[in-house]
């Protein structure tokens, strides 16, 4: 059955099957598998054990290697993506080359997805047998080592990106912080107070923003986007597109003389930072603490840029001569070893829930608008004035807008309960109005969060448990005339209520940014079904991605609040530091090489390689693979007509024997030829 020439002498294989508590043993008859594999050619030891990944489990392997003189190890347990490294290390510690190991996935691929114990056990046997057959042909290999560039790219300048950048910079690493908007600060800069402590968002954020600007280890590029990326962990080449501000950034001191001098005497364009609640001029600084303190010209509204015709009063006003209408896009090429993505979220668009009347009734607001409305530096100086100029006497806050809904976003956005409570407190404090919270379930899991809820209850805020069905303006009696009417079942009392209000606040959920799919493609990572970036493991690798060297932090991975975002940003920075400080990276030695004597020189492999790792040696008329460039996809191997390319770890013979191993019992009973 076996090809003895493929390995050195007769291999001595040890097979270990893991119960994983009842995770595997509850479905797969591990004992039967172990007994069966024990009968196979070359298998010297076949054991079952409760937790193979535990220390005693690993010691079991190591002891057997030494005592039984094993030279091949097969472990049937969970996914290799989880524990392959663990068992390879264990194998190596016992003095064996770590690549004389093969892993069988009988948890994710078997016990967790099948219910019939008989069929699951048969499948586990097939998979284990295939691994035993494959491991026969394994060869000793050494992991590939590449040096790592210590510079880090951080994408996104919200609180996550700011915190990650500062952590890395403080550790002495150079950081490129790239932000799409003209200023860093992200959503947090727009908030008034933060829950549950009610400290002012700007007071805790702006010192960090200026620290970023002044840090010698941070290169800050705002109004910029990553436009291209190539390379792999340790050595990424990044191209950053810098959009023109029409201002010489290094000269501008943010004196705003140009803004005052602008030909538009009145601000008349919607101000992005105040979510359209105030106006700005074509030349502006987003908000007083914007970082960098540099103005920019909006090409959509500036007369000179749009029409090419303007008196250019701004240029006259600028004595430092920093205005430059000839500026164009600029591209910067940088090299980094690791990348942290902190691109944040998008608030749910309430026009997708037309029954709440946003856009129809002027006094229906989004939560983000209200953050600006209660903010002392906001468009109304913190006075809650409605769009019709009145002051509200009754305010309703509708939770879960766009969240927990099959038709919009299925997930709970996690932060809305708490920020709704915060806004309830602030609105009551600012206006003295009656405030109603309409919620489905009150979710306050966090340090000091339940206590905050308790505080609100004592403040006399109303809590009505029920998802609002509609916000309308048709009145049933005189008291309802001119009001917004919320119709809702008070599910705790068991009756339908109509609550007349002057102001309705929609607690919009959090969703992935509109371009999340483009960003994930650019950085070669995945998105989960809802569109947030996918972490490598939901529990054990929450800031890692499936692409080595690319980490994620903050709400781009899923809805989260500021404390969790900062914790994640710190974790991502630490993960990057761990890679950098190791000095080099160990890569899977799964590169390909050419068997020169067999190569016919047909050149069909050369254009296949996306990394240009294959060249043609004109003198020898043979192909040649530069192992340093090869990333180990194996596409050239499959294409070589003469079979003269070999991929380490995935040799043809190894895969053939895996196929044969899977089906061998079948072929015997079917009377086929082997």
């Amino acid at each position: 059955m076996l090809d003895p020439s493929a390995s050195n002498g007769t291999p001595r294989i040890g097979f270990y099957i893991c119960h994983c508590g009842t995770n595997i043993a509850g479905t797969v008859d591990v004992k039967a598998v172990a007994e069966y594999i024990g009968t196979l050619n070359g298998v010297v030891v076949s054991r079952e054990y409760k937790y193979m990944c535990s220390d005693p489990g690993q010691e079991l392997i190591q002891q057997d290697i030494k005592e039984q003189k094993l030279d091949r190890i097969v472990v049937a347990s969970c996914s290799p993506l989880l524990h392959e490294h663990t068992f390879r290390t264990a194998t190596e510690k016992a003095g064996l080359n770590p690549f004389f190991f093969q892993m069988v996935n009988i948890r994710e691929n078997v016990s967790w997805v099948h219910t019939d114990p008989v069929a699951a056990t048969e499948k586990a046997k097939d998979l284990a047998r295939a691994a035993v057959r494959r491991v026969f042909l394994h060869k000793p290999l050494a992991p590939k080592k590449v040096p790592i560039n210590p510079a880090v790219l951080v994408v996104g300048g919200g609180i996550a990106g700011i915190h990650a950048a500062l952590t890395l910079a403080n550790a002495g690493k150079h950081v490129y912080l790239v932000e799409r908007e003209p200023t860093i600060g992200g959503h947090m800069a727009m908030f008034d107070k933060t829950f549950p402590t009610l400290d002012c968002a700007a007071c805790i954020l702006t010192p960090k923003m200026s620290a970023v600007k002044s840090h010698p280890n941070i290169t800050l590029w705002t109004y910029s986007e990553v436009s291209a990326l190539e390379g792999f962990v340790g050595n990424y080449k990044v191209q950053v597109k810098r959009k023109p501000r029409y201002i010489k950034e290094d000269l501008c001191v943010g004196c705003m003389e140009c803004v005052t001098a602008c030909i538009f005497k009145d601000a008349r364009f919607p101000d992005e930072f105040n979510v359209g609640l105030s106006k700005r001029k074509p030349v502006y600084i987003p908000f007083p603490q914007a970082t960098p303190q540099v103005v920019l010209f909006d090409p959509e509204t500036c007369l000179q840029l749009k029409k090419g015709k303007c008196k250019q009063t701004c240029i006259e006003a600028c004595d430092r001569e920093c205005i430059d209408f000839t500026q164009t896009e600029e591209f910067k090429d940088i090299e980094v070893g690791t990348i942290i993505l902190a691109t944040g979220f998008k608030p749910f668009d309430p026009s997708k829930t037309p029954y709440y009347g946003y856009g129809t009734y002027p006094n229906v607001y989004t939560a983000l608008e209200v953050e600006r409305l209660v903010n002392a530096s906001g468009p109304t100086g913190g006075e809650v004035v409605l769009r019709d100029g009145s002051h509200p006497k009754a305010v309703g806050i509708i939770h879960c807008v766009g969240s927990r809904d099959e038709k919009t976003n299925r997930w709970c956005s996690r932060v809305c309960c708490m920020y709704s409570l915060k806004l309830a407190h602030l609105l009551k404090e600012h206006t003295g109005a009656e405030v109603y919270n309409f919620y489905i379930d009150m979710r306050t899991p966090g340090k000091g969060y339940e206590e905050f809820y308790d505080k609100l209850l004592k403040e006399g805020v109303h809590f009505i448990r029920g998802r609002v069905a509609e916000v309308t303006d048709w009145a049933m009696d005189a008291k309802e005339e001119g009001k917004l009417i919320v119709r809702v079942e008070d599910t705790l009392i068991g009756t339908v209520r109509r609550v007349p209000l002057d102001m309705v606040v929609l607690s919009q959920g959090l969703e992935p940014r509109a371009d999340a799919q483009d960003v994930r493609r650019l950085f070669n990572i995945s998105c989960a079904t809802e569109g947030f970036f996918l972490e490598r493991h939901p529990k054990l690798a929450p800031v890692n991605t499936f692409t080595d060297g690319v980490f994620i932090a903050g709400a781009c991975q899923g809805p989260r609040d500021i404390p969790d975002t900062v914790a994640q940003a710190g974790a991502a920075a630490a993960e990057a530091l761990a890679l950098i400080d190791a000095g080099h990276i160990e890569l899977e030695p799964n590169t390909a090489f050419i068997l020169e004597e067999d190569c016919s020189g047909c050149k069909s492999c050369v254009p296949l390689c996306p990394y240009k790792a294959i060249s043609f040696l004109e003198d020898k008329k043979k192909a040649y693979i530069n192992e340093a460039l090869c990333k180990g996809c194996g596409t050239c191997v499959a294409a070589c007509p003469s079979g003269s390319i070999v991929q380490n770890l995935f040799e043809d013979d190894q895969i053939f024997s895996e196929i044969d191993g899977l089906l061998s019992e079948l072929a015997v009973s079917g009377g086929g030829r082997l």
Partner: protein
Amino acid sequence: MTNTPTNGKSGNWEPHIVAFFCNWCTYTAADLAGVSRMKHAPNVRIIRVMCSGRVDPQFVLEAFAKGADGVLIGGCHFGDCHYSEGNYKAARRIRMLKRMLHDMGIEEDRFRLEWISASEGDKVKLVVNDMVDKVKALGPLGLPGRFNEWDKEMEHLEAKAGVKEVAHAG
């Protein structure tokens, strides 16, 4: 296969399907299906490769020859390949292979290529169940058995020819 009879005579025949899943997308998706406990048919055995571009047509032929009733290949969606374009190469190669299998009389539903991203655990479940249903409907392929018969036929023919040769020699 002690418990899953493989000859078509028995009513409880179960198909055997060999799958080649790329490490980055489809294999990860299968893991996700596992973590999410998405139950599906137990007939598919997965072989992990780094990229769908690594799948040599010979692997597929070998699987059929050794008794597989179906072969499934899973890779990243176009534009998502971890190695930029391995999946395009796979797609091109597989189109050719499909034609060849058709000529060999192997039904279309027995060989399938699917793009399944790392987040599409549910798609693994759907594809596996659907393929198992379709292959079940087709019944066993039984190439090893057919090879056996062909071998016997050949032997028979050779024997005949041999007799002739002997006769000539005599």
